[in-house]
């Protein structure tokens, strides 16, 4: 995971995503579900207030399809 002081954003690896939906439950402020059960992720850098929940969403994904990457 990127260093704490750099801005981060969410990214989904759709090849591994199976549409469990855990991420949208844990981070509804940045993740919603499409009509087929797959996550629509806010592409903007995450505000610091959401960082902790974002990390639980990332570790909560049963297929580790959700990632936090550096926002460029």
């Amino acid at each position, binding site marked *: 995971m990127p260093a704490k002081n750099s801005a981060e954003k969410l990214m989904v*690896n*759709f*090849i591994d995503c199976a549409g469990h939906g855990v991420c949208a439950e844990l981070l509804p402020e940045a993740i919603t579900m*499409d009509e*087929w059960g797959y996550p629509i992720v806010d592409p903007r850098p995450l505000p610091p207030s959401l960082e902790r929940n974002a990390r639980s969403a990332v570790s909560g994904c049963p297929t580790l399809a959700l990632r936090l990457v550096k926002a460029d």
Partner: protein
Amino acid sequence: MTAATDSTQDGSQSSATTELPRLLPPPENKGDAWGLSAHIERHGRLPYRDREGILIQDIETAGLTGRGGAAFPVHRKLQAVFAAADKRRRTPKVIANGAESEPASDKDATLLWLSPHLVLDGLQLAAEAVGADTAILYTHANRRHDVGSRLAEAIRERAARSLDRVPVQLAQAPARFLSGQETALLNHLAGGPAVPTFNLPRITERGLGNAPTLVQNVETLAHLALIARKGPRWFRSVGTDAEPGSMLATIRRADGQPRISEVPLGIPLKSLTGDLAPGSAVLLGGYHGTWLSESQARQQLTLDNHSLAEVEARVGTGIVITLPPDRCGLVETARVVRYLALESAGQCGPCLNALPRIAAALAEVAGGRARSQAIEDIERWSGLVAGRGGCHHPDGTTRFVRSALRTFAPEVRRHQRGQCSATSSKPFLPVPQDAARSEHDWI
């Protein structure tokens, strides 16, 4: 094939165009022009540099960009692989991508058929530049010519003269639309199906067999082979300043037959489409490309990304198709999108769900039996799926679809009334008929 037509638009391409074609044999040559002796006679011997990395500087000065569709600066890829090999102390691998899985394109197969030694030269030079010990040439079987046999013979000719320093392996791509995609290509070479994989870090750092891997389109390698002989200034003597060089274009006009032409970048689109009859349309960039209306195509557009950005199109792999007025653009688009949907790898939820639905809705629109919301649905699904996949297949497909809905908007309205302006129902755009049915079709 035809030599490039003269361009007198802005003077930057005047006398240099007479030295085209560069990659393809001159038009008066026939038959044996592809052999090693003829190749050496025309182009000279393979100019090895005898040191890694040197060629990269020339490629940078030349401004060569990839001819596989993405137009990525070649020197940056070479540099990335070279640096990764150094940092990780791993010997890199080089792959020539001749999969050409786009049905409307024929330029790579033609290049491999007519100038295999240029591609093979480029492969050796790229391997030398990055210090690779493995070279693979990946081609697609389904073509008019037996490219595989010719390449095997070409490799034998070179082996007889000990020309290649890195032995070249031939590999065959399965007949799938995605098989030319970089990670799908690697997946296949590693023994799996030709479906994309999630690759972080990039394959230039960790690719085939965990080694830094360079994947270049076969045409790109052919240009590289000539730049190594004639220098970057020569390469830049045609084309535009921002987008230098020549490229192979696949042109289809009213008879639907593909013609490969080597043209300078920046050539007026008009010389490729010909005069447009009223009711025509132009498809630029193949099945992940963009439809242009006749009035858009009549603007002073040139074949380069800078000019085409005005109509939200890209050069891509240089496919220029003129749809004659007697065909229906919606019907053709629906046929193609059905094929594109069936070619989805089916790994990613959004693509798997959206593409078949878009294809079905488009078929309804084309058949004049669409529900009133069909267009809205297509737009919504297109928006949902763009950027949400493991590769750019859904992005390209929806770009194609949306450009069709824009360009053929009047036709959409006609179809909603149960009418169609086409007078021929003969299929125009080339669409393969065999769909993948099992895992076996992807291997």
